[in-house]
């Protein structure tokens, strides 16, 4: 399928349009709420909750005995919330650490869910087709009503975020301070956790239990690299999430045998990779460049101050010296000498060098003025 044909299909084909919209909305809400999860060091909560939602789905089926995705969502929400509160209980009341608590809830709830699922499979009413979709996600099963539901919930989350914006911001970055100001941090904590659980539950049907955590984390982790402002980070994360959703759907729809969930996760991972490497302020590439530049500057300064120490013993500071005497000084290279000359700090005649008055002045002030160190 050509790109043009695909774009045409998105606007004409009902299924494709629904899926594209659904994954876009899902990516946006996950990015938005994932930002909070990442900043609150609860990154893996998403993984634990998405596994913990499974028994809820199975129990919802056992009670309603029909495949009703709203009932499933409710069941998943309840068991996800139970899981997240039990995690909190384990961390605060016992000496087990958060990693153990998360791993425990994850595996125990999921195992219990598997027990229920296999039990359901052997029940006489074979109406259970579709329950397994929640394991690995099946974007193709998205209906327009599901997308509407996602959009409405995203809207509600957005409004509540705006309403509690400064409280949430404060509690994310300085929970103790928020507490001393008299905000109910426990309420804010529960609010945010509940929202994260909601986002996870919404995504289960599309990307599945296992990949949900990446859906939540990857856009936020990528957005974090570009900014230090919470509002911008959340906006960026939502954009990254939505873009991964749309692009992932497009790729999986135009190729055979490519399930949507994993492709979306891989696209989101590409965003993370690019952000890690290329972000101007935190990225690895620019960090390396800055590191090298600093090292070169430092070596230049060391050489200059070494020269200064030699020159200051002479009456005439521009008295020439042999380049040879610099040779056993660490940090001296032909290139650094060349650079010094370019900056007009030294002048070189044949095998001799001499400090210029300007170079002498700079060297004398080198360790007096810290602000000078960064000069070009």
């Amino acid at each position: 399928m050509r790109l043009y044909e695909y774009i045409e299909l998105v606007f004409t084909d009902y299924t494709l349009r629904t899926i594209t919209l659904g994954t876009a909305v899902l990516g946006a809400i996950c990015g938005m709420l994932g930002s909070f999860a990442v900043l609150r060091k609860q990154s893996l909560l998403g993984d634990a909750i998405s596994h913990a939602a499974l028994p809820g789905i199975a129990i919802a089926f056992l009670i309603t005995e029909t495949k009703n995705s709203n009932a499933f969502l409710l069941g998943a929400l309840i068991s996800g919330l139970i899981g997240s509160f039990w995690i909190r209980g384990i961390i605060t009341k016992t000496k087990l650490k958060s990693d153990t608590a998360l791993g425990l809830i994850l595996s125990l709830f999921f195992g219990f869910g598997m027990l229920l699922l296999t039990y359901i499979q052997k029940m006489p009413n074979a109406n259970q087709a579709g329950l397994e979709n929640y394991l690995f996600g099946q974007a193709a099963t998205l209906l327009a009503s599901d997308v509407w539901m996602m959009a409405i919930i995203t809207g509600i989350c957005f409004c509540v975020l705006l309403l509690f914006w400064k409280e949430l911001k404060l509690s994310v970055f300085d929970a103790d301070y928020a507490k001393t100001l008299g905000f109910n941090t426990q309420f804010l904590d529960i609010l945010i956790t509940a929202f994260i659980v909601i986002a996870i539950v919404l995504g289960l049907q599309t990307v599945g239990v296992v990949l949900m955590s990446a859906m939540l984390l990857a856009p936020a982790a990528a957005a974090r690299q570009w900014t230090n402002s919470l509002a911008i980070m959340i906006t960026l994360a939502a954009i990254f999430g939505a873009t991964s959703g749309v692009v992932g759907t497009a790729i999986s729809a135009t190729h055979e045998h490519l399930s949507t969930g994993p492709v979306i996760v891989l696209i989101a991972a590409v965003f993370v990779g690019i952000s890690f490497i290329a972000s101007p302020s935190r990225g690895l590439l620019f960090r390396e460049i800055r590191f090298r530049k600093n090292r070169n500057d430092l070596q230049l300064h060391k050489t200059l101050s070494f020269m200064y120490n030699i020159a200051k013993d002479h009456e005439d500071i521009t008295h020439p010296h042999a380049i040879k005497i610099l040779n056993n000084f660490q940090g001296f290279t032909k290139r650094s000498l060349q650079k010094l000359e370019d900056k007009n700090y030294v002048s070189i005649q044949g095998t001799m060098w001499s400090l210029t008055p300007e170079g002498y002045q700079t060297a004398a002030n080198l360790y007096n003025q810290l602000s000078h160190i960064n000069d070009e």
Partner: protein
Amino acid sequence: MSSAQLEIQLIASLVAIACAIPGTFLVLRKMALITDAISHAILPGIVLGFFITEDLSSPLLILLAALSGVLTVILVEFIQKTKLVKEDTAIGLVFPVLFSIGVILIAQHANDVHLDVDAVLVGELAFAPFDRLLLYQTDMGPKALWIIGSILLITLGLLITFFKELKISTFDAGLAAALGLSPVVMHYGLMTIASITTVGAFDAVGAILVIAFMIAPAATAYLLTNDLKKMLFLAAILGVIAAISGYWLAHELDASIAGAITTVLGLIFLAVYLFAPQKGYFSVRYRQRQQRIEVSLLTFLLHLGNHTDNTSERHLQHLYEHINWQKVRAKSVVNLALKNNMIQIDQDIISLTEKGHSFTKEAIDYIVTNKNAEIENMKDRFFLFRG
């Protein structure tokens, strides 16, 4: 009980013991979640190995999968070292990506490969006895039993040989490094064992049960004891109990064995979490309540000690207002003080007894010299009744 049933229980028990050993150390080193990451991230290794060998239990496949497990650990640590994201985010980013690659690889070759993501993740213990190891046409028992058995033997051997080193590096990494034990070697050794165990067990029991077997018995044992050796034993025993009773639960319900075992593990943990004598939920709640009352008691006695010459400050009715306590709390504090013979009430005026005086005096000494911990020992000497 048929021989197949016996074999299933034997395999499950061996997996439980083999997982309990690395699991205990992972829980103690706060790296429990790395098992989750490994168990998902081995998928691409398994798929690649399967393309080459076409056999789910060949040693090459196990080796490849274990390698991708170790690769996960290295990747996670690399991302952590860049300090671009927090530690747990690194784990959460790496394994879904590797898992996605695995899923896509399987899907791309879905037609000509007999390999199911479900099988990898969930496993089916019930089929384990049917995959027999044939040596010179003689039946040597189920393959899974041999694989797990040899992994368990290797793990046990390493545990006994390096017990001392493991113990030191787990509880005091700095001391271990100072004594010349490389923390890196210990770390990657443990990771390799965890990875191999996960891979060796996934075929028989599935990834989720491996995570549960690694974390749940160790965490449960940790709530019951502080002794490393006891913790290892307890974790192994709890794992075996869950394996056997889980099997029979699955037998009754006609459901997934792995799911049933995990459920039993969950129930055991829940019971211990709530009722463990020292560290359980209820005893922690009880102790916190007790300490709150005892701190109140100390404040109350100090208040009395400060006002030995002023009776209005010590009047029973006014006291509530002065210290600003609610009635119920004030009453329980006064009762506790009375029971311990620290105060006497004479016409609604409370005064310290001889014992109360010496208690407050000693407590002030400790508070002034910043030895607050000593107050706990002091309580044992003075209190007849605890709060």
